[in-house]
C-alpha cells in the first residue's frame, strides 16, 4: 500500500471503532454504559490481534478486551466460523475481569473469508448471584457465568443460552437489551468496515494491519527508549477487605520495552476484590500510557511494548474460582503504583497518588420493605486526584476510571433517599506546592424515616493517597452513621450495612496527595484556596 492510502485507511479504521462505540453507548440499557461510558469497542485481525480501539470507554477494558479475542479464536477456530455467527462470554478470565462484563465477538466476512472481527464489551447491571459487591467467597456466588459460546450461529439465535441467561438475572429485559446492543454495535462496525474496504479497494486488512502494528510498536519502543534503562520499585498499601493489602511492583525498562511485575503483592483475598490478570494488565498498562506514548493509538503493536505479569493466584492474578466482582477497587489502584515507578524516571511528569478507586455504593431498600418502597440506585462519588507536577489535582474527579456521575435530583426522583449535602470537603486535598484534589462529603437520609441498605466498595479510609516530591498525603475517606444526638459510628469500607431509620449516613471520599513541599506554594494560590474555603485549617505543617 502507498503511504497516503495507509494513512487514510488507518484514520478511517479509528473512526469506524469510534462509531461502533457510539452505537453501543446510545443503545445500551445499563445506566453505567449509557451515562458512565463503561464499555469498550475494537476491531481485530483474523489472528486475534487488535488493530484499533475506540477511545470512548473505560481503561479497565483497554487491553483486557484486546487479549480476549485470541481466547475466543482458540476455542472457536476461524475455520469453523461463518457469516452470521456471534460469540459471547462473561467469564472473568476470558473477558474483562468480572461477571458483569459481557464481551461479544462478531467475525466479518468478505468474498467468502473472514477479514476481521469486531469485539465489544459492556457492563450489565445484574448477573444474578449476590449482586454487585465484594462480599462473595467465590465466583459461583457472584452470579451466572457463561463460557465462550455462540449467541448466534449463522444468524440463528442460541435460544437455550438466552433462556438460561434470562432465568438467572434479576432484570432480564435489560440484560437482553444490552446483549442486542453489543451485537448491533459490532454489526454497525462490520458494515462500515466493508464500506471502507470497497471505497479503498482493499481485499483484506493484512497489509494495513501489519503497517498499523509495526508502526505503533516502533513508536512506542521509541518513546520507551528515551527513558533511562533500569529497575524501579514501588509499593503501596491500601485498605483491602478485612485486612490491608500490599501492591508491589518492579518496573524494568530495558531494550526498548517495559516489564512490570507484581511479585511480592498480597495473596488472593477470600472476598471479591481479587483481580484476574487481564484486568491487572489493563490498568497497569493504562498507567504507563498516561505518561509514555499517550498519543499512540491502542492496538496489538503499541500494547506489546509493555509486558505485565503477576505471580499465579496472588491478588493481582487471581485464578478461578476466586471471587472478583469488586476487582475494580484494587485494579484502579494500579496506575498509582505504576506512577510510583515512573516518577523515578520522569520526576517532572508524574502526579501524586489520588483517591483512585471510585466510590460507587449500591443503595437499596431494607429487607422486608413494602413493594412500593423498594428501590436500588448505584450513584458514583469520586475523591480527588493527585496533584500534578505543575498544577493542583482535580477535585472530585474519577481517575483512572472514565465514568461520569448521575445527578442528585435524578437519584432523589428514583429513590426515597435525600442527599442533604454533596459538597467539597475543605482541607481534604494533600498540601504541597501543588495541592491534591479535594474529596466530597455526602449526607444521606431516608425520606420516610425507614432503614436502608448500603453495599460498600470503598478504599483509602485507612491508607491515604500519598504525596510526591515532598507533598503531603491527601485526606482519608470516611463512612459513618450520624445519630440524632450528633454521635458518629464509623462503618467498614467494604461490605453491606443497614442504616437505621432517623440516622444520617455520612460519606467522605478521599483527597488526592500533594506535590512538592507545601512551603513552596504560591501565596496567591494559597490565598485563593482560603477565599474559596477549600483550605480552612490554620495549623500549617
Amino acid at each position, binding site marked *: 500500500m502507498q503511504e497516503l492510502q495507509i494513512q487514510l485507511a488507518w484514520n478511517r479504521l479509528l473512526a469506524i471503532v469510534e462509531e461502533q462505540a457510539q452505537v453501543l453507548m446510545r*443503545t445500551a440499557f445499563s445506566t453505567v454504559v449509557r451515562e458512565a461510558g463503561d464499555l469498550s469497542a475494537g476491531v481485530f485481525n483474523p489472528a486475534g490481534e487488535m488493530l484499533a480501539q475506540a477511545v470512548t470507554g473505560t481503561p479497565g477494558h483497554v487491553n483486557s478486551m484486546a487479549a480476549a479475542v485470541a481466547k475466543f479464536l482458540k476455542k472457536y477456530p476461524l475455520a469453523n466460523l461463518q457469516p452470521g455467527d456471534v460469540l459471547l462470554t462473561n467469564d472473568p478470565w476470558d473477558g474483562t475481569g468480572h461477571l458483569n462484563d459481557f464481551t461479544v465477538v462478531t467475525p466479518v466476512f468478505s468474498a467468502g473469508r473472514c477479514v476481521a472481527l469486531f469485539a465489544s464489551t459492556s457492563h450489565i447491571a445484574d448477573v444474578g448471584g449476590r449482586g454487585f459487591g465484594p462480599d462473595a467467597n467465590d465466583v459461583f456466588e457472584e452470579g451466572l457465568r457463561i463460557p465462550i459460546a455462540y449467541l448466534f450461529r449463522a444468524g440463528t439465535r442460541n435460544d437455550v443460552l438466552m433462556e438460561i441467561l434470562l432465568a438467572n438475572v434479576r432484570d432480564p429485559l435489560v440484560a437482553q437489551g444490552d446483549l*442486542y446492543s453489543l451485537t448491533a454495535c459490532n454489526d454497525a462496525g462490520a458494515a462500515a468496515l466493508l464500506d471502507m474496504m470497497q471505497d479503498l479497494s482493499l481485499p483484506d486488512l493484512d497489509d494495513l494491519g501489519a503497517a498499523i502494528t509495526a508502526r505503533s510498536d516502533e513508536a512506542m519502543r521509541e518513546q520507551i527508549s528515551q527513558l533511562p534503562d533500569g529497575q524501579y520499585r514501588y509499593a503501596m498499601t491500601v485498605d483491602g477487605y478485612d485486612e490491608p493489602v500490599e501492591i508491589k511492583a518492579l518496573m524494568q525498562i530495558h531494550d526498548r520495552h517495559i516489564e512490570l511485575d507484581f511479585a511480592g503483592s498480597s495473596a488472593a483475598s477470600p472476598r471479591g476484590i481479587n483481580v484476574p490478570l487481564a484486568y491487572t494488565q489493563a490498568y497497569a498498562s493504562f498507567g504507563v500510557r498516561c505518561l509514555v506514548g499517550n498519543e499512540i493509538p491502542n492496538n496489538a503493536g503499541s500494547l506489546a511494548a509493555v509486558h505485565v505479569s503477576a505471580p499465579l493466584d496472588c491478588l493481582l492474578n487471581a485464578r478461578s474460582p476466586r471471587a472478583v466482582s469488586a476487582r475494580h477497587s484494587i485494579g484502579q489502584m494500579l496506575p498509582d503504583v505504576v506512577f510510583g515507578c515512573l516518577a523515578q524516571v520522569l520526576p517532572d511528569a508524574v502526579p501524586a497518588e489520588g483517591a483512585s478507586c471510585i466510590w460507587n455504593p449500591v443503595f437499596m431498600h431494607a429487607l422486608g420493605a413494602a413493594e412500593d418502597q423498594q428501590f436500588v440506585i448505584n450513584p*458514583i462519588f469520586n475523591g480527588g486526584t493527585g496533584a500534578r507536577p505543575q498544577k493542583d489535582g*482535580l477535585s472530585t474527579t474519577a481517575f483512572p476510571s472514565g465514568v*461520569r456521575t448521575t445527578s*442528585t435530583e435524578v437519584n432523589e426522583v428514583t429513590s426515597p433517599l435525600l442527599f442533604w*449535602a454533596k459538597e467539597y470537603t475543605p482541607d481534604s486535598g494533600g498540601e504541597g506546592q501543588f495541592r491534591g484534589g479535594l474529596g466530597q462529603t455526602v449526607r444521606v437520609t431516608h425520606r420516610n424515616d425507614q432503614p436502608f441498605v448500603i453495599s460498600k466498595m470503598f478504599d483509602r479510609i485507612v491508607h491515604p493517597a500519598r504525596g510526591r516530591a515532598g507533598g503531603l498525603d491527601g485526606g482519608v475517606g470516611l463512612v459513618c452513621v450520624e445519630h440524632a444526638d450528633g454521635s458518629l459510628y464509623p462503618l467498614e469500607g467494604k461490605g453491606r450495612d443497614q442504616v437505621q431509620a432517623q440516622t444520617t449516613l455520612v460519606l467522605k471520599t478521599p483527597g488526592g496527595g500533594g506535590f512538592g513541599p507545601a512551603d513552596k506554594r504560591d501565596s496567591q494560590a494559597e490565598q485563593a484556596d482560603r477565599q474559596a*474555603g477549600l483550605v480552612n485549617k490554620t495549623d500549617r505543617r
Partner: protein
Amino acid sequence: MATRLSVDIGGTFTDVVIQQDSEVTSVKVLTTHADPVSGVLQGVDDVLSRTGVAPSDVQLVLHGTTLATNALIERRGAKTALLTTAGHRDVLAMAFENRFEQYDVNIDRPAPLVPRHWRVGITERVAADGKTLLPLDESELISAVHTLVEQGVESIAVGFLHSYRQPAHELRVAQLVKQKFPQLWISLSCEVCPEIREYERLSTTAANAYVKPLMAGYLERLQAALVERGFSCKVLLMTSGGGLTTLNAATRFPIRLVESGPAGGAMLAASVAQAHDENSVVSFDMGGTTAKLCLIENGEPQHSRAFEVDRSYRFKKGSGLPVRIPVVEMVEIGAGGGSIASLDALQRIHVGPQSAGSEPGPSCYGRGGTLPTVTDADLLLGRLLPENFAGGRVSLSVEAATEALQHHIAQPLSLNVLSAALGVSEIVDENMAAATRAHAAEWGKRVQGTCLIAFGGAAPLHAARLAQKLKISRVLIPPGAGVGSAIGFLLAPVRYELVRSDYARLAELDQAVVMQLFQQMRAEAAEVLDDAGATGTREERREGYMRYVGQGYEIAVDVSDLHSLSVDEIRRRFEKTYERLYGRTIPDLAIEVLSWTLSLSSEPMTQTLQATDAQAMQQSVGDQVQWWSGDSAFAAKVLLRSELQVGQSYAGPLVIAESQTTTIVPVGATVAVRADDALCIELAEQEG
C-alpha cells in the same frame, strides 16, 4: 414592498444585508470588538447608501451576534453569584466528576463562571415531589445577598434543588431581591431552564446571569442607535434554536442568543432544501477555524436542547460548559481553511483543531504564518486562484505554501510536496466525513443518498470531495454563500420554545396535568410571538422527553398531533421514535417522562432570495489552472460564477470563481445553474 435589514456579528466580520423583496444586497465590515454597535452602524450606513434605502423604509431589523458566546469564552461577563440549596454549593464545579480526555493527566475542567466564594448555600429544601421539607430562610438570604452586593456582585443566579417541580422558593428570592436590591440582575433556574438535573440547569442559569448585564446593555445601546438613525421598526434577535425572538425575551434569556450565526446558516440551508425539494439534506458550513454540519429533514434542521459553550480542549465533547437551551443540533469540528497540518509521533498527518486563524493566517497569506494549513494545500493543488482570493483583496503566495508543506509534511514523510498537499486535503475531508457519519449514527440517520448544501468561505472547495466520501451524489451551493447566516436570519420564523419538567411513569400519566402544562406554555409563547408582531398562521410543536425506566438519556418524542395524549398513543409514538433511532424496541419495559417542551413558530419565509455582494470587485481570472492528483497534472477550466447561465450545464473539471469563495467541480461531475442561481453539482457514480 418588503424591506428588511439583517445583521450578523461574527468573530471577524459583521455582515449586513438588506432585502428589498427578493433582492438581497450584502456588505462585510470588520467587527468592532470594543463596541460592536459602531461596526454595525458602519455596515448599515454602507448598505443603505449603496441601495438608497432610508432607515424609515426598513420594516424589520433581524440581528444575530456572537457577543454572548465571546463573553463566555473570554470570561468577560458580569460579577455573578449563585444562590443554591445549602449543602450543594459545588454543583457547578463538580460537574459530571469525569475527565473528557482519558490519557491526558494534565487536563482541567473549565473554571465555573461563578467562583466558590460567590456560590452561597441558603437554608431551604424541596423534595423531588415538590413538597417543602425546609422553608426558605429569608433573613439568611437577605444577609447573604447584602454581603455579595458589598463585594461588587452585579448579577445573581438562583438555582435550588427540584425548583423545576416547585419554584416557590426561587420566585420568593426574586421578589425579595427586587425589593431590597433593585440594582441587581437576577436569573432564576425555574425560568431559564426548568429541567431536572441540577448541574445542567444551574450551569445554564449561571451562564444566563453571567451575560445578562452585558447583553442587556448592548441591546439597549443598539436599539437607541438605530432609533437615532431614524429606524422606527422592531428589532428581532436570532436564537440558537433557529428562530427569532423579541428584544424583551432576549434581554431576559440572553443565553439563548449563543450560536445564532451557525443557526442562521442552518436556516439558509433549510430554505434552500425546501426551494429545491430536497427532503433529506446535510448542511455544510466551513470557515477558517471550524466546519459545522447539520442534518435537515423536510426543511427542518435537527433540533435538540443540549449544547456546550467553549469546548476549550480541541473542541472535544465534555470540555465546555453545558447549557440546556433550544438549539439547532449540529456537529462542529476543528476543520477549516486555517486548520494547521502536523505530524504526530507515528508520522501520521493530523489536521486541526489548531488554526492559524486570520492572523497570521495560512502561510500563503504571507503575513508571517509558516505552518502548513488546509488553504496552503488547496492552493498547491490548484483549487484556489492566487489572484482571486477574497475578491482579489489578499494575494496568495505559492512559494510560502510550498515551503510550509515541504518542510513540515513532505520531507519527513519522503513525499513530494503535491502528495503531501493531497494528504492534508484528504485527511481534513476524511475528518469531516467521519464526524458527519458519527453524528448521523447518533441520531439514527443515514447520510448516503442525501443532498449536501455547502456555504461558508471554504465549503464549496471541499464540498464535492466530502460528498464523495459520504456517498452523496448531489451538492447545492446557494448564492451569497459568504453571508449565509445573515441571509438565514431573513428566512427564519419567529419562534419561542419552553420546557417544563414533570416526572411521571407513562402508565400513570395524568393527561389533564400535561394538557394544562401545554396550555400555560402556549400562552407564554404566544405572548412573545404577539410582541414580535408575528400574525399569520402559527405552528406548534409539542414534545415529550422520555426513556425506558433506568436508561440514562431521554429521546424527544413528537406529540404535536396527539389531541387526547392517551397513554397508549404516547407509548406507540415513543416506540416508533425509539425504533427509528436504535433499530428496535424493548417490549414490556416501563416508560418514564422527564420533561415536556412546546415550541410556537410563525410561518418561515419561503421566498427565494437573490444575493449580490455590494463590495465585489471587478474580477479577472485566467482560463485554466493546473490540477494535481498525486503525481499527475491535468488542466481544469476556470469560470466566473457571474458569467454562468441559468439552466446551463457545465462539465468538470472546473474551478468556479466568485468574490467570497471558490467552487470545485471534479472530473466526471457536471454543474448546472438553477433558477435561483444556486449551483448544483451532480457527481458521477463513484468507484471510490
